[in-house]
């Protein structure tokens, strides 16, 4: 009996994944274009949040600069998809040493943007080793704050404050679906790939090493784990995922602009990651849903219609953050997991053991 | 009525259970020792009395229940706890550490401090020195002095001999004995050094794996074969 139960338990993960896949394939039939856009954004931010989850949740490095990585991915994708001829047509003058190519189909920019951003993340990860928790938070905050400023400054490449306009991609293979529909699939398939990659990384040796480092670096060293290697790698991976998300964002909105990546994005991403649930990949989905839908509901809470909320969505959102940290410090994903465990064992833990971050 | 009474105390740190039903008493004016190996639960017992662990069971001090009160409350009732590692404020000076002892006291800081300096005259010369720069023995004496400033009824010492040279340990325990005999101070001392502890204490409890394994007077324990072999070395 217990064996059956255990195997059923193990089957839950893949079963949910399959159910989600089916849902994704069928959903567009039933929604309008705007909803489709919203759920495309959910996929995009879930990708970014999986990256942040790996960095902060699994390897324990608090980052307030994730939005900058997303921005790097977005700009990379924009530059690559237009290529040098496209940029020059827009009156831009990128320096000759930049390998911009002649333009490419947007979908190919996704992996390249991920790679470029990943390298950037590795670059950040090396000095990050020297900095402790507070200093790292500040350093990443510095990157987030500086990103839009730097993008504006180097206008010959980036289009400055005006940004870069892209063309909307065409649906491939002559499929008879709208562009929005196609982008929805593009985003969710990428999300699925990233999710699988994240799952493989976190359940294997690398994931264990990350958790060991997070829970006690000194102890990890004495178990033979080289923290520097794994922490830097975590930065690279999380940046790569964020870069992919950024590329998709650029493709989806067909426009990149420094003001779409202010420091607030980094902060909100972190908040969404924590509320969704760190240390759990499913948390990224919850976080992304929150990120896309909460600001809207903060203005019009469905429970009580309140003029206050109309005027002060910030207050509602801020109070929401505080209250949910008081009630569910492990995040939403942990809450559901605790429910499942409670159903099985009859006991309910409000705090997760894995969310102890030093 | 005993000054301190523990009845079937279970204590845990988060999910880790450290005490599995410890019962002991300390009468006013006694010196009682708690002995045992590392990890037996000696420190946990003191911490439970000071309300620094999650405890089930009853802890009565002077008849009052203190198990579920805050550590600050317990200290203000006249229980002075010198923890493992001494609990000094490393960046504060010797004098400032002593002044902090006065927080739980009954307002007679100046007289009490003079009394303490009587026991440890070197303190006057080193008043402004940061506590972190003192030697181990001096730190222990400062911690003890600080505890005394608050005019406690019960003094609890956690492993006072840890890391100290034998002569200093003798001196320290000599002072403790003097305090008990001359001023009637009740003392509960946790020690790994069973020999010196049994010299000063009149009664002792031996803890093993979170439970009381043996209890009795010092003489009884010195004759007890198990205690002799495991803790006294002969």
């Amino acid at each position, binding site marked *: 009996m217990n064996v059956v139960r255990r195997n059923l338990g193990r089957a839950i993960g893949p079963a949910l994944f399959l159910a989600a896949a089916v849902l994704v394939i069928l959903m567009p039939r039933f929604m309008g274009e705007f909803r489709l856009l919203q759920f495309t954004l959910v996929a995009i931010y879930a990708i970014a949040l999986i990256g942040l989850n790996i960095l902060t949740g699994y390897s324990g490095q608090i980052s307030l600069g994730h939005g900058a990585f997303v921005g790097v991915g977005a700009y990379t994708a924009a530059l690559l998809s237009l290529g040098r001829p496209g940029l020059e047509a827009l009156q831009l003058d990128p320096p000759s040493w930049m390998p911009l190519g002649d333009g490419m189909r947007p979908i190919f920019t996704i992996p390249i943007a991920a790679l470029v951003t990943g390298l950037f993340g590795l670059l950040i990860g090396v000095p990050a080793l020297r900095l402790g928790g507070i*200093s790292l938070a500040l350093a990443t905050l510095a990157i987030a704050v500086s990103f839009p400023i730097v993008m504006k400054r180097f206008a010959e490449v980036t289009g400055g404050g005006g940004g870069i306009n892209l063309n909307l991609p065409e649906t491939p293979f002559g499929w008879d679906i709208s562009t929005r529909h196609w982008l929805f699939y593009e985003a969710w398939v990428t999300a699925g790939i990233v999710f699988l990659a994240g799952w493989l990384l976190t359940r294997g040796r690398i994931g264990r090493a990350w958790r060991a480092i997070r829970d006690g670096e000194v102890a990890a060293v004495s178990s033979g784990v080289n923290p520097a290697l794994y922490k830097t790698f975590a930065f690279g991976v999380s940046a790569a995922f964020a870069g992919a998300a950024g590329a998709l964002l650029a493709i989806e909105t067909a426009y990149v602009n420094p003001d779409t990546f202010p420091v607030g994005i980094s*902060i909100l991403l972190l*908040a969404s990651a924590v509320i969704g649930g760190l240390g759990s990949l499913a948390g990224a989905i919850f976080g992304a849903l929150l990120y896309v839908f909460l600001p809207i509901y903060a203005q019009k809470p469905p429970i009580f219609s309140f003029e206050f909320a109309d005027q002060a969505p910030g207050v509602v959102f801020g109070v929401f953050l505080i209250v949910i940290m008081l009630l569910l410090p492990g995040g939403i994903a942990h809450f559901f997991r605790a429910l499942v465990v409670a159903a099985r064992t009859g006991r309910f833990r409000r705090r997760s053991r894995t*969310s102890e971050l030093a | 009525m005993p000054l301190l009474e523990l009845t079937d105390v279970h204590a845990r740190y988060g999910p880790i259970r450290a005490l599995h039903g410890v019962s002991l008493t300390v009468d006013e004016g006694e010196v009682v020792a708690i002995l045992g190996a590392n990890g037996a639960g000696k420190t946990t017992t003191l911490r439970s009395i000071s309300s620094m662990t999650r405890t089930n069971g009853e802890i009565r001090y002077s008849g009052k229940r203190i198990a579920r009160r805050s550590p600050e409350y317990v*200290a*203000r009732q006249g229980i002075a706890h010198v923890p493992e590692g001494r609990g000094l404020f490393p960046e504060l000076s010797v004098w400032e550490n002593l*002044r902090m002892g006065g927080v739980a006291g009954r307002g007679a800081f100046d007289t009490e401090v003079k009394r303490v300096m009587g026991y440890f005259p070197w303190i006057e010369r080193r008043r402004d020195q940061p506590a972190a720069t003192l030697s181990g023995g001096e730190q222990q004496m400062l911690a003890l002095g*600080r505890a005394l400033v608050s005019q406690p009824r019960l003094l609890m010492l956690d492993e006072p001999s840890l890391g100290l040279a034998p002569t200093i340990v003798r001196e320290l325990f000599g002072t403790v004995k003097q305090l008990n005999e001359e001023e009637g101070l009740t003392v509960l001392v946790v020690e790994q050094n069973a020999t010196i502890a049994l010299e000063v204490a009149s009664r002792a409890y031996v803890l093993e794996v979170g439970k009381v394994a043996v209890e009795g007077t010092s003489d009884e324990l010195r004759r007890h074969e198990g205690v002799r072999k495991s803790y006294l070395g002969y």
Partner: protein
Amino acid sequence: MAIPARPALPALDVSPAARTLILGVGGFLGSIAVLVLIGLVLTQTEEVFTWSGYWQQVVSGLAQGAIFASLALALVLIYRATDILNFAQGEMATFTTYIAWSLMNHMSYWPAFALTLAIAFIGGAAIERTIIRPVEHRPEIVIVIVTIGLLIALNGLAAWIWNPEVKAFDSPFPNRTTEIGGVVVAIQDLGVLGVTLVTVILLWAFFRFTALGLVMRAVANSQDASRLLGVRVGWMLALGWGLAAVLGAIAGMMAAPSVFLDPNMMLIILIYSFAAAVLGGIDSPVGAIVGGLMLGVLINLLGTYVDFIGGDLRLPAALVVLLIVLLIRPQGLFGHKVVRRV
């Protein structure tokens, strides 16, 4: 007891007080020397350079740095007491500055100033008791999100109560300049420096000479040891947050006349103050002050004399300098090296 490793100081055979004095005076003279040096370099590199203009920039940089120092001191105060980085410190300052603004419609400046400080104190303590206390022992990341939530909530609340239009804020100092030794300085800048100096001295005296100050220092050293001595640690922490809120209010009211009052007024200043605190060593009050002043002078000089940086790249430039310092000395200028105990 985990004793932090003592910072390496030359072994001087003098009392600690004398040693502090020597280091202080030495540091002060050294800073003047460095500034003179920079000025000399600039005489070579700049086409147009006047010494009086240079010192004017230095003074105005110091005034700006004084504001950073106040807020940085608030951050350090809370961090030392509770190991928490209060991201909402800037918004708390903004909020109290708005309260001052409202009060100044009904009373003159200094009474409103004093009343605001009292309100800030109570508010800060209240926030600690109600919002922070329940999460004090949770993982660091949870507390970070709570303070961020507080930031967002206060920002929205200020915008809602007082509406987000930019407002002018009175200064108690006249809007004139005066000449000292051939250098033209704004009285406003001198005033800000003066207020900050008085605040720092009062705070130092409080911690050094009063019983309450001693207890708070003890709590910052070790909460557990304090508890065992009967200290009501919870109330001491609330006191700490109250004092930090007062420091923030002062920073806000000193900054508002120049940067104008709006809900986002302190956001950039918070980042600079955060940088100053980390630069000085997040657990060092002296570091916060020195770091703040240094940063203020640095960004002013960089902005004025380095064309590449100009006005908009000042913040990234300052942060780059900070990061370089941190990479060389991760604990900041005055911080204690963290000894990892297994």
